[in-house]
């Protein structure tokens, strides 16, 4: 797979994956940063962590999402950002699946208070699909903007 990612089509696919995940994280982070209180309440409603942890995560997690989004979009440390975002997405998917398993009727909290949405297995599937895109970015040889440039031909061997 990594060989294909080095082709022109592969590099375009990696860039699209990077921008998609970055865009989703950016879209998710901004409303949470604007209203950390609502996000902390959303975390607390999952009953997975103590309230004190929900308070810290309510303020800190959206900023981490923003940093990850900017790194992915800018193509700076994109593979590292993809690994971190994949970890976050898997944690979110686990929390959603646990709430669904227990039939807890909670707001997703995925995109802040302004975009309230009831949780469902489609939310879990969305997170897993984004995780797959993160994996593509993480394994790509050069997922940054430099990777989009045409490759120079290797210099001929010296006679």
């Amino acid at each position, binding site marked *: 797979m990594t060989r294909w990612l080095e082709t022109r089509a592969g590099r375009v696919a990696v860039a699209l994956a990077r921008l998609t995940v970055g865009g989703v994280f950016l879209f998710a982070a901004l409303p949470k*940063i604007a209203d*950390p*209180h609502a*996000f*902390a*309440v*959303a975390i*607390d*409603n*999952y*009953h997975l962590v103590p*309230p004190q942890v*929900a*308070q*810290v995560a*309510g*303020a*800190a*997690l*959206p*900023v*981490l*999402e*923003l*940093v*990850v989004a900017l*790194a992915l979009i800018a193509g700076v*440390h*994109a*593979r*590292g*950002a993809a*690994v*971190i975002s994949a970890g976050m997405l898997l944690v979110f998917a686990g929390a959603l699946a646990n709430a669904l398993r*227990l*039939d*807890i*009727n*909670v*707001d*997703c909290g995925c995109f802040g208070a302004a975009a*309230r*949405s*009831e949780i469902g297995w489609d939310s879990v599937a969305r997170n897993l699909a984004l995780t797959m895109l993160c994996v593509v970015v*993480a394994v790509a040889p050069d997922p940054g903007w430099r990777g989009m440039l045409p490759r120079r031909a290797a210099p001929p061997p010296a006679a």
Partner: protein
Amino acid sequence: MKQIANESLRVLAVGAALGLGHGLVRGWPALPPPQAEAMSCGGPVAAEPSVAWIRCDEAHALADDAAVAFVDARSAEEFLAGHVTRAVSAPIEDTGVVGDSVIASLRGARLVIAYCDTTGSCARSTRLAGLLARAGLPDVRVLEGGMPAWLDSGYPAEAGP
């Protein structure tokens, strides 16, 4: 691989530092105090914060305690077909409220455990627990997994009224 690990640590360090700084500067978001609040089945709503969960095995260990009461949030028909032994029927989906007689019968209980079938889109037991907590019952919890988990564990159930 090492380069990916280094990049991950850098992104994580920058994000965590800025996130914690954001919390320190703006203040940590306050959570609402626990309160009993009825939930609606229709829309996306927050779970009842004052109601805790109880695992099936924990509930079963307490089942013989006369001061522990089980409340069935399912419909009257489902209750008649089979329910946790000694449970009280409170089919809130039909009426949206808990009858005074049900609340009166639970007044002496030190612990009330609400449950439903968990298969519907609506968390009836959580809603019922919220209503009971608002009615002043001191310790109301929701059974994890509801009736299916109770039966799967082989715990006692009975049919009829």
